[in-house]
């Protein structure tokens, strides 16, 4: 809660989202359940600190009682002061202890959560970890868990301080004099009332404000994303007008809201901090009239200060708890991700053949593969071709069990992949995809991912076969050069050759190639082709390629279109058939003959054709 109109808009936003702060706190406590002894100890220390935080007020109260009595016992006053100092010191000590304990719990819980998620990542489908949620997983494991620290480490001691101290104070005041307590509370209660009314009237403007704020974020991001494009077309004036329109809308909305909220807002703000308004005025008269003893009144006034800025504290905490709620929600998405079903019986694969039997697969409601069937006998080569989006890569992913088929079965060596132990399955398949993951480690360590016990000589042999040895030895520290995020940047072609070296070292009987040879510069492309040729020898190969000449010698070419097999056969058969593949082949051959030219080169055949 806050009396500031701006913050009120933010907070009304949160309460209108239906976030209950109490359940959030309970969820946080549940996460920390393993360390509940420490949590309770932390709460205990926090409570002790909260009670001791009244020390300065009580010291003043007792001192005042003494000062209005006759005679004044100064040595007693000195003791009061000394106790006050000790009380404050003890409070700080206990609060520190409470904070330390809660940090211990927070750090340990963060560690446990990360361990839990790491385990989880080994059980979800490979597709889950590898596609849409890649950045999200990293974000959850690294950043979001980091922010949970605030909820776990700070909120526990601070909530106890913010709630317990005022409650104890209020009880104490009721005991001292209930009439004075009521006088103190009245303006604050009225302030709360005003605040409640303001929050209610804020619901409409809040929606507008949220809406403008969201649009401002989108427009700004879009403006920033597209600035190069709009500038290229000199349309930036138009784009910036759109942005400034939203900025203006934001100002107008804020101004309008200010007009409406200023009176209840300021009244609430002042009243919530004005515990002296009636206590100071009416209280003085009551004391003058003898209804209250002077010493009692003086003591009461001092203790009343201990009531503190309760509202400011609660406001800050509710803000932060809301943030925690969002994080917990996102954490649960990953914690509850569906796991791969495994019947972990050891089964024997007869050979390195691949069979797809009537396989269908959907992403959500969109079916991307329907009734796809083919056989690749061990040691043979099958090529998948088709327009983009026809489902080629999905087939490769199903073979490697990145996903499970919705219908039908994928079999390797006669065994359904769902019945093969995942590690066993992966031992049989090597992948070379366009996108290569290098981790922080040396070149040698990255290659050794293929087989951890490979000797240096074997690593080097693999690199040589992958046509990577030459560029590796040119690196500053050769095979010991660190790679990865903080390491050296390699070109796409070089990364690809490292991944081929891995696959060579792995020596799996099945090889999946997805656009592995399509590399921009001719030298890299030629080297990668040599490397792939070496790798493909003697293995069962499934290859996806757009550059159709590279697969002309495949044993079978399967042509996919919109998730279905439309043609299959050898290259020569398919070209002769005159169907989709023949059209693709014709387009491919024409594309190979394309030449850049302006009208000054009219002899070029492409121009004439294109200008039809």
């Amino acid at each position, binding site marked *: 809660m806050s009396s500031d109109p*701006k913050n009120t808009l933010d907070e009304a936003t949160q309460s209108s989202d239906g976030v209950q702060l109490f359940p959030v706190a309970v969820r946080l406590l549940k996460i920390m359940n393993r360390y509940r002894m420490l949590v309770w100890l932390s709460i205990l220390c926090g409570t002790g600190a909260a009670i001791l935080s009244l020390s300065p007020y009580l010291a003043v109260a007792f001192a005042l009682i003494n000062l209005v009595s006759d005679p004044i016992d*100064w040595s007693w006053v000195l003791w009061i002061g000394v106790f006050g100092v000790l009380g404050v010191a003890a409070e700080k000590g206990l609060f520190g202890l409470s904070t330390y304990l809660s940090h211990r719990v927070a750090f340990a819980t963060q560690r446990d959560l990360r361990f839990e998620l790491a385990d989880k990542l080994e059980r979800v489908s490979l597709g889950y970890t590898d596609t849409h949620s890649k950045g999200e997983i990293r974000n959850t494991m690294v950043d979001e868990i980091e922010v949970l620290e605030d909820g776990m480490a700070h909120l526990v001691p601070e909530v106890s301080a913010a709630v317990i101290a005022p409650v104890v104070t209020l009880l104490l005041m009721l005991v001292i004099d209930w009439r004075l307590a009521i006088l103190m509370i009245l303006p604050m209660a009225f302030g709360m009332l005003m605040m409640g009314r303001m929050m209610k009237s804020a619901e409409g403007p809040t929606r507008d404000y949220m809406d403008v704020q969201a649009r401002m974020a989108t427009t700004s991001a879009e403006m920033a994303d597209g600035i190069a494009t709009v500038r290229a077309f000199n349309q930036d004036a138009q784009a910036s007008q759109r942005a*400034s329109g939203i900025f203006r809308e934001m100002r107008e909305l804020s101004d309008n809201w200010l007009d409406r909220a200023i009176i209840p807002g300021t009244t609430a703000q002042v009243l919530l901090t004005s515990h002296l308004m009636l206590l100071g005025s009416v209280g003085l008269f009551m004391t003058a009239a003898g209804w209250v003893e*002077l010493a009692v009144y003086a003591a009461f006034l001092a203790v009343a200060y201990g009531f503190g800025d309760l509202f400011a504290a609660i406001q800050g905490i509710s803000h932060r708890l809301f943030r925690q709620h969002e994080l917990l929600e996102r954490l649960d998405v990953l914690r509850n991700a569906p796991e791969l079903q495994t019947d972990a019986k050891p089964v024997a694969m007869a050979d390195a053949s691949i069979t797809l039997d009537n396989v269908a697969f959907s992403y959500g409601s969109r079916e991307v593969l329907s009734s796809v069937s083919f056989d690749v006998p061990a040691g043979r080569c099958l090529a998948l071709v088709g327009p983009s989006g026809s489902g080629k890569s999905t087939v490769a992913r199903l073979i490697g069990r990145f996903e499970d088929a919705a219908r039908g079965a994928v079999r390797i060596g006669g065994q359904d992949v769902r019945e093969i132990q995942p590690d066993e399955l992966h031992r049989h398949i090597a992948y070379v995809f366009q996108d290569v993951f290098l981790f922080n480690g040396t070149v040698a360590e990255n290659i050794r991912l293929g087989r951890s016990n490979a000797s240096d000589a074997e690593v080097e042999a693999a690199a040589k076969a992958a046509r990577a040895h030459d560029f590796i030895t040119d690196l500053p520290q050769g095979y010991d050069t660190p790679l990865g995020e903080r390491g050296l940047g390699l070109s796409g072609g070089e990364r690809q050759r490292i991944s081929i070296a891995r696959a060579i070292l792995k020596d799996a009987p099945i090889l999946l190639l997805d656009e592995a040879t399509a590399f921009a510069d001719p030298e890299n492309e030629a080297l990668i082709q040599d490397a792939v040729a070496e790798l493909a020898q003697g293995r069962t190969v499934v290859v996806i390629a757009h550059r159709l000449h590279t697969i002309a010698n495949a044993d079978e070419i399967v042509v996919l279109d919109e998730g279905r097999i439309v043609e299959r056969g050898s290259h020569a058969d398919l070209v002769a058939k005159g169907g989709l593949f023949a059209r693709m082949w014709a387009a*491919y051959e024409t594309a190979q003959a394309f*030449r850049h030219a*302006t009208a000054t080169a009219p002899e070029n055949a492409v121009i004439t054709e294109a200008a039809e």
Partner: protein
Amino acid sequence: MKLLSFVWAYLPPKRGQYVTSLALTGVEGLLTATPPLAVGLGLMQLARGNADFASIWPYAAACFLAVLIRIYVIGQAWKLGYGAGNYASEQVRNRIVDHMRKVPLGALTGRWSPSKLATLITEDGRWINETSTFYLVRFLNGFVATLMLVLFAAMFEPLAAVGLALAMGGGVLLMVTAKPFLESFIHKRNDMVGEATLRIGEYADGIAVFRSFGRADEAQKSFRSAVQDMHDTTLSVAPVIVPLQQSGAALITFAAPIVIVLVAALHLSGVYSADPMTLIPALFLVLAAATTFLVGVLRTTLPLELGSRAETNISAFLSSPELGGTRTDFSDALGIEFERVSFRYSEDKADAVSKVSFTTRKGAVTAIVGPSGAGKSTLISLLLRFHDRSDGEIRLGGLDTLEADPAAVQSMVSLVSQDVHLFRDTLRANLLLGDPSASDARLAQVIDAARLTDLVAALPDGLDTMLGDTGKTLSGGERQRVAIARALLKDAPVIVLDEATSAMDPITERAIQEAIAELEDGRSVIVIAHRLRTVIDADEILVLDQGRIAARGTHTDLLNNDPLYGRLWAAQEKAAGWRLR
């Protein structure tokens, strides 16, 4: 106060209003200090035995009325101040957007990425708004109120002020001295944590690969040790960091007990005796001052610090250099001349491009080829002023590009690259970006030329289909053709092509080639070619290697004379004949 002077610059028509608001805040501070003062004085009267209505009522009235007046004053202060703050943050946001239009585009890909800029506009803009008004007002109020309360307390009992000064001064001193220590400590911790974070993130990114190599368990072992390291590091430094952070604020709560000890000890030792009567309001004011200082001053310094961080971010962006140049008198020949052009991305880096000279003629095809990392794209970014060159001279139509109006350079040149930005808008609006005034007939012609007819026919709402993440997503090949259609509409005389590197199915590739042929027709073309075959008819081929032009000439010349080109050509021919098995 940097934040204040920053906001001040965006306030001009509202400055009076803003100053009035700050002044009113000062008055409000005084009013905040009034009730404790009045009550203290009232108590003193009562303690002296003056319990009659006449001697009490001024204090009671002051205590009550101060609250009412404060409500009015704070209302005025907020109204004026927030109005001014809303205005200033709008101006700041507009200024950021304005600056985005004028900086070199290269600056927007590096340090000022789109997400950074969006944060700058929305989040930092909001912090500027909140701190320039709410927190600054609160701070000022707290500061004035604290000062008044300390002064009042001193008037009644000098020892009270001594105690407050000890606690406050000590606290602030502690905060200031602890700060550098704390920062270096946090810095050190962040380095250690950063290292562990990297390893944790890597596990998340690479888990699919680790699993597919059957190495997930080993990867997890290393992950677990990184997590444990992070846990141990953070835990070991917490006992240092946490107390340091809280020490400053902690001292102020000692104020009241310290005053009591001081007064009593001095009285008992006979050095100095405080008047018990004036001590009553004094003690009371000490409590009020300590509370006000904690809530009004110390607790607002953090938000103010965040606000000045936002100010630093925004100022850093706004102070990045803008593109200069105003001339638009390009000659008709529209040739491009590079003369000994060099460029490095930063002073401590080697030249990305070094002493490159070449000339293109109107209507000619100039190809740039070379191994990856040779500097091909850098040359293009210099021509388009994404970056400004470090040395040499670039002329377009006889004009030095540094003197030419950046917008005019843009309208002379169309860049078509693999990287196509589509807006969350209709396909029509996305196309019309090339020429907002294009007629429907012209649009239809361009759609045909860019081989987009089939796509438009297949879309649910045709040209009015929404694109982008909330609408229809286009494939890479389709996006390319949208970019070509835009360029056709823009009709710039110079075309710069950065050939696509990613693989595309042959039918799509062919459609793009046809569209490109239409675009090149009758224009000057500079093409970054990855496939040498596409440029064998070029008027001139520049072979770039390690930032320098290694050779130049026609295809035949180069094939006969340049070993690097010969090597690239041979590699390509070999690749073209390659068969898997």
